[in-house]
């Protein structure tokens, strides 16, 4: 019996797509819609994650706005959550890309890292 391989072609958008987020004070990040989310900060923003399931690993690429904007990790599926920073520092310097990887170990807790392009 031949082995059945799962190819990328059969994976859903949450594993294969990229979504461009629009800067606002409050931004909904629908984790079922993409694997990678990009954002250029134009506001101090709060990211509220929806449709999160345990085990989700999402990547945010946030480009700094250069105006000391903050980025708040907000609710998960509408409820407050704990975010544990593993390493890294968010840098809002203009054009600086912040690579934020966030792993949801439950729907109330996530661990994340922040990295920038090595100069």
């Amino acid at each position: 019996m031949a082995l059945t391989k799962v190819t990328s072609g059969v994976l859903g958008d949450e594993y294969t797509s990229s979504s461009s987020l629009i800067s606002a004070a409050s931004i909904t990040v629908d984790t079922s819609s993409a694997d990678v989310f990009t954002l250029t900060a134009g506001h101090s923003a709060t990211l509220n994650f929806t449709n999160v399931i345990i085990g989700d690993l999402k990547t945010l690429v946030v480009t700094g706005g250069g105006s000391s904007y903050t980025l708040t990790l907000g609710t998960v599926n509408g409820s407050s959550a704990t975010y544990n920073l593993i390493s890294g520092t968010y840098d809002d310097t203009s054009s600086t890309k912040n690579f934020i990887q966030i792993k949801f170990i439950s729907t109330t807790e996530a661990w994340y890292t922040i990295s920038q392009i090595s100069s």
Partner: protein
Amino acid sequence: MKALVKNGGIAIYKTLPNVWNNILNFRKATDEVLIENGFYDVVRPSYDKQTQTKGGLYFDEKKKIVTYDVTDIDFNKEVDIIGEDGEPTGEKEKRYKIDDIKASKIAEIKSKAGKMLEPTDWQIIRKAERDIAINSDVATKRAEILAEADRLEAEVNAKKSYKTALQYNVKFFPPSEKE
């Protein structure tokens, strides 16, 4: 410098944390965001170290700042006189004695006058030892210094409170006030 006011306590932060309450780049957050999270400016009050003391930190709810309590020193405070046996005698005396501070200021005046006279003291010694006349300009200058010292001493003695005596600034030949 900022301070976190939380549960009635105050914690000073020389530098703000980069992450606070899931807010990234918190160090550069606006004052509005900082205040929402309990962080306020620390304001160091100006105060007269001679007559006031700087106390502990407190949160000024009205001004939305964290600052230090400044208290006027009570120069009329009385303390118990301790006897030779180490026990209070039942008598009291002023903690801050005006005579003490006046004596201190007068000693300062004499010291400064002595230093101003010192460069020409040799002429006085020469006069005493060999009866060589003191230069007239030197004599004039020395007389001015001594007269000024007397004037300052009289000003100190005229002080009626410890505080005003303490605040008296010993200064020879101050520039005359502008009219």
